[in-house]
């Protein structure tokens, strides 16, 4: 049960990552792999500040801001300097590796005994449950700290998702969606599409860094390697989410990305429980994303061929 709750909590935290990837890949159609660096950046900045004793909410916000800045740099490289989007992301991601080491001062920064947002969540849980250490949910024994962490993560995701949903319906957010959809059109309507891309990637990487900051506080450490493979994780979540909701409507795709992240994390937890070698995890994730990207076209091709065959 604790394994399940842990998977759910991490799935919810990484839903922020999925939302970030959703913005860059789906809204802007921009293959932004800055995420691998910015998720670790968010963790590093938040952890470094927490170790210094900064207020956890402030440290988390600083993590978001750092990711925001990193995304803005990628956007600027891609638009103002006309560097290929993929390469711009690689450049920033690579540079961030050094930045993260500088921020943390070493490659791994434990947060044991520090006051973090997790500490807040636990305290809140204990208070609400009247000091009970364990509770029973549908006959399952659950520690109150795990449960409160899950609830806190859930509330945070709901809040962020609503904020994003609202944002993309403002004048600015609608212009951003149109930029990804048809940049020629939005320029002809007086919008600087380059500014939109820079701002969009900034928001995207801000969310991804926020995911990193929360993950570091949940697992109790920040690590310079923790960003590796994050883009593919996020993409997998987005793709699963699209399959789950089966719609391109904004609100549904946003909730789809969140559900996809949680669902994917659950699948992984089950696979690990069944004896999957953790070393194979990234390989399998990559293979999964590959299949998800290729299968729809292949199925369509087969269907057309079959239809033609039947007609002949």
């Amino acid at each position, binding site marked *: 049960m604790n394994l399940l709750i842990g998977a759910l909590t991490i799935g919810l935290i990484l839903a922020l990552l999925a939302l970030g990837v959703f913005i860059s890949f789906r809204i802007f159609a921009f293959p932004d792999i800055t995420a691998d660096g910015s998720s670790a950046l968010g963790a590093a900045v938040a952890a470094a500040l927490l170790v210094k004793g900064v207020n956890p909410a402030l440290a988390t916000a600083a993590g978001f801001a750092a990711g925001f800045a990193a995304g803005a740099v990628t956007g600027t490289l891609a638009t103002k300097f006309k560097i290929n989007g993929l390469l711009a992301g690689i450049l920033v991601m690579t540079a961030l590796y050094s930045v993260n080491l500088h921020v943390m001062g070493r490659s791994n920064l434990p947060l044991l005994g520090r006051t973090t947002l997790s500490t807040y969540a636990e305290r809140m849980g204990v208070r609400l449950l009247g000091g009970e250490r364990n509770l029973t949910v549908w006959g399952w024994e659950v520690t109150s700290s795990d449960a409160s962490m899950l609830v806190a993560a859930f509330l945070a995701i709901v809040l962020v998702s609503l904020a994003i949903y609202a*944002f993309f*319906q*403002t*004048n*600015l*957010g*609608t*212009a951003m*969606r*149109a930029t990804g*959809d*048809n940049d*020629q*059109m*939005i*320029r*002809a*309507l*007086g*919008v*600087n*599409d380059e500014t939109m891309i820079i701002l969009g990637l900034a928001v995207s990487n801000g969310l991804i860094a926020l995911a990193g900051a929360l993950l570091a506080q949940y697992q109790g450490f920040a690590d310079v390697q923790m960003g590796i493979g994050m883009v593919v994780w996020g993409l997998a979540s987005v793709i699963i989410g699209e399959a789950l909701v089966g719609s*391109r409507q904004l609100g549904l795709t946003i909730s789809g990305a969140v559900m996809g992240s949680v669902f994917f994390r659950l699948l992984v937890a089950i696979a690990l429980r069944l004896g999957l070698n953790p070393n194979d995890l990234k390989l399998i994730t990559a293979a999964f994303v590959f299949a998800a990207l290729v299968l729809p076209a292949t199925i369509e091709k087969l269907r057309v061929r079959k239809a033609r065959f039947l007609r002949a």
Partner: protein
Amino acid sequence: MLEIHGARKVFNPSTPNEVRALQGVDLQVEKGSFTVVIGTNGSGKSTLLNAVAGTFYLDSGTIALGGIDITRWPEHQRAKLIGRVFQNPFSGTAPNLSVVENLALAARRGKPRRLGWSLSRGIIGELQERVRSLNMGLEGRLNNPIGTLSGGQRQALTLLMAAWLKPELLLLDEHTAALDPKSADQVIALTREIVERDRLTSLMVTHSMHQAAHLGDRLIMMHRGRIIQDFRGAEKTRIRADDLLARFEEVRRAEQLDETAAEMLRRAYI
């Protein structure tokens, strides 16, 4: 009023693919004039429109609109003054956004976009009203993605969007060329109606001699990056599609003569 002076543009300079698209174009379009541009393939008529829209900067020459020099303005800044309809019906709208969202974007052309709701209650009423005035039965499909509409419907909406804020200049770039004849007629009728109602200064490129003869109050003919003919007033009213075809034939023959003459000279002197 649009004023173009000495506009020159060379694409891919000093390469085998060098194209001298504009070779010194001077043109003044008076306020309220509906000017139609025709020309042979590669004559520079679309290039001229794109130069005004700001798709690229001129190599030399100036462009002024309403007395403001916009030669060095980027495309999105010019959009404050210019409404555009493209040749491709898919170019003027964002396919995954709904019809209302597309229209709401156009209703803020050139204005700052901040955190106000894009579909505020005030604007939705006006949107419905204007879409109903198209008489295309689209008022029931306002919340559908605009990509689900036909090319003709999208082009009509693009026209509505471009003219929404009564731009200083309306640019129409062969905007019916990709449509079936019936939709093309519908869009042309709508163009005439909107331009005349709002007295929009308009510049329209077309391939259709019929449209060229029947639309607008002035007709410009381009060839090889230059303006070779300018009909206006009574002369424009009199002109027929056949006259235009004859004029094109003349140009073509003159060109052929040039080539044979060059060939003869080459044989004689080299």
